[in-house]
């Protein structure tokens, strides 16, 4: 067991990668066996993630050096710097790992019935597992170049999956947009990595953080990295790709794309808090991130108001929720060097933002699955052409309401738990930000109430009279999200203590991340 946990960080990435290329072979022989293998491997990965999470939270940072004689030998004999690829897993990484594992399990279960009629399913599962492996890799790696490679793996497989249903013209355009945006973002990331390597001859995040001076070139690299990752997570000046791709992908893929965007959010946190840390002009960078966040909230919600396509509506809501996280992070970053402010409200703001990351993945995932279920049954995404669906699709209607209430931050659900942390801490930093946040939440509620009433209530339209509830696998996938949302909403304190607090401490405590790499120098 101890050996398994010792090697778990690489196994979590390697198992989906290996199974990805096995699925076409197994699928040619037997389709049932392929589904069993895909689900079985993901369940095993989920077990490893939770075991690793427990180990990291109890015993501290876990490092794994690839290709070394011993897996915790971060710096080889005879050199003074880490030359091998190192996986470094701390509180934030396992937190993101938990999100990815939950979301990927749900996405695969949902795909089992949603993709049943499609051709080329063997390749679909190959790409799906590659996307999962890429996302896990992004959150577990401790090496900047490795981050770029996993970013590209996730982008390429993600774009191929968005365009998977080749009979729809708009999916092809969505895939094209996604790959163009991802290619530009990741090439800019590579350019910034080159700028950093030029000065310090290092690629490891921990070792770079120990050496970084915040010179002019570092500032340029920071600007490029922040803009590239904000582009990948759909922050406002670069948000237009998000609604076009999320609305046309198969919904199980959209759910995974949300997790991939959250991995970009993780990369942004890593860059700001761990790599640059207190060398930054904290107030300036913090306020820039807050400004991006406020713009994302406001433009996201106002664009959501005028949408009639249900998936585009939810996609714009994603932009809006990403804004909340950015505001929380920005406030935390702005007071990072001020000890009293950090203790009174800074850490709470960061906790709120981190907690909102998982809540966002859960409730937006649920909403997208509901939208996919509606599309699966009636073949349209236009809200104006729906009506009275609640009479026959009772579970779907209930899940939509649950997701909508959680997303607007109403009390018994998880969205409230994280938004209240952000509101109360940001209020002490600057009250206006909280007022904007509450206003945006209210408009979000209005948007969803409108969508709910026109889609699910009212008289049942005659053409939808023989519409049935969706298949059991889809209901099961939605139930998993719904149950987790309710548990998180009822016991937020436990969740914060178990996984959010260690993640916050890991972000704020830059030195422990550095010491895990360079602290072993004799």
């Amino acid at each position, binding site marked *: 067991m101890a050996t398994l946990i010792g090697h778990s960080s690489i196994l979590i990435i390697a198992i989906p990668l290996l199974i990805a290329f096995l699925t076409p072979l197994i699928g040619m022989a037997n389709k049932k066996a392929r589904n069993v293998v895909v689900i079985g491997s993901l369940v095993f990965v989920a077990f490893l993630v939770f075991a690793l999470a427990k180990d990291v939270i109890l015993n501290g940072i876990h490092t794994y050096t690839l290709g070394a004689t011993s897996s915790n030998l971060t710096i080889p004999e005879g050199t003074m710097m880490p030359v091998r690829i190192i996986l470094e897993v701390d509180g934030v990484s396992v937190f993101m790992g938990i999100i990815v594992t939950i979301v990927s399990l749900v996405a695969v279960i949902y795909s089992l019935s949603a993709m049943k009629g499609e051709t080329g399913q063997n390749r679909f599962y190959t790409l799906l597992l590659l996307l999962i492996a890429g996302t896990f890799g992004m959150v577990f790696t401790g090496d900047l170049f490795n981050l770029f490679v996993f970013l590209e793996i996730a982008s390429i497989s993600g774009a191929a999956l968005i365009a998977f249903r080749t009979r729809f013209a708009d999916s092809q355009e969505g895939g094209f947009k996604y790959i163009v945006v991802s*290619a530009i973002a990741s090439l800019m990331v590579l350019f910034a990595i080159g700028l950093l390597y030029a000065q310090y001859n290092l690629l490891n995040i921990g070792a770079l953080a120990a050496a970084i001076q915040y010179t002019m070139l570092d500032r340029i690299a920071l600007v490029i990295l922040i803009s590239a990752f904000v582009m990948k997570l759909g922050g406002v000046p670069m948000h237009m790709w998000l609604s*076009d791709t999320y609305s046309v992908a198969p919904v199980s893929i959209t759910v995974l794309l949300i997790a991939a965007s959250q991995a970009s959010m993780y990369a942004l946190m890593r860059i700001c808090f761990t790599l640059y840390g207190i060398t930054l002009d904290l107030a300036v960078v913090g306020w820039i991130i807050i400004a991006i966040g406020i713009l994302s909230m406001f433009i996201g919600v106002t664009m959501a108001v005028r949408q009639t396509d249900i998936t585009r509506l939810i996609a714009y809501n994603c932009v809006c929720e990403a804004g909340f996280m950015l505001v929380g992070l920005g406030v935390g970053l702005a007071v990072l060097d001020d000890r009293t402010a950090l203790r009174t409200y800074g850490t709470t703001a960061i906790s709120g933002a981190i907690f909102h990351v998982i809540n966002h993945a859960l409730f937006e995932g649920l909403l997208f699955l509901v939208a996919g279920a509606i599309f699966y049954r009636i073949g349209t995404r236009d809200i104006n052409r729906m009506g009275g669906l609640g009479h026959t699709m009772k579970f779907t209607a209930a899940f939509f309401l649950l997701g909508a209430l959680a997303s607007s931050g109403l009390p018994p659900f998880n969205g409230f738990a994280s938004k209240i942390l952000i509101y109360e801490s940001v209020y002490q930093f600057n009250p206006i930000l909280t007022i904007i946040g509450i206003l945006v939440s209210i408009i979000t509620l209005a948007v969803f109430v409108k969508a709910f009433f026109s889609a699910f209530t009212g008289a049942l339209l005659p053409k939808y009279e023989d519409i049935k509830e969706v298949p059991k696998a889809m209901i099961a996938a939605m139930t998993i999200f719904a149950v987790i949302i309710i548990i998180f909403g009822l016991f937020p304190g436990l969740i914060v203590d178990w996984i959010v607090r260690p993640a916050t401490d890991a972000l704020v405590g830059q030195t422990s991340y550095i010491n895990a790499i360079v602290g072993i120098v004799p």
Partner: protein
Amino acid sequence: MTGTLIGNFPFVAAVVLMGIALYILIFRRNLIKIVMGITILSSSVNLFLVTLGYRTGGIAPIYTDAPEGPMVLPVVQALTLTSIVIAVATSALILSLVIRIYRHTGSLDSKKSRRMKG
């Protein structure tokens, strides 16, 4: 002065290429030209990385019949190789998507095919 200028010439070239690529990506509407823009962007980044790896007086890290002297740690060259492979995969995928879009819309003009505005 001219010495440093010639020494820095590859960096200047990389930045100029990057500027051309970004211009194409922002202002051109033909989908094939956007693909070309991305390829030029990746070439400019690769050129930048390879230029970083040049060390005056260093020798290539090939141990067979190596002359005396400090060897270069070939990290950047390895990065460039990986990046080239990824760029090939990206352009293959992106071109296949362009073909698909052309089959659906009969046009390569992004303004005509863009039906998902707002």
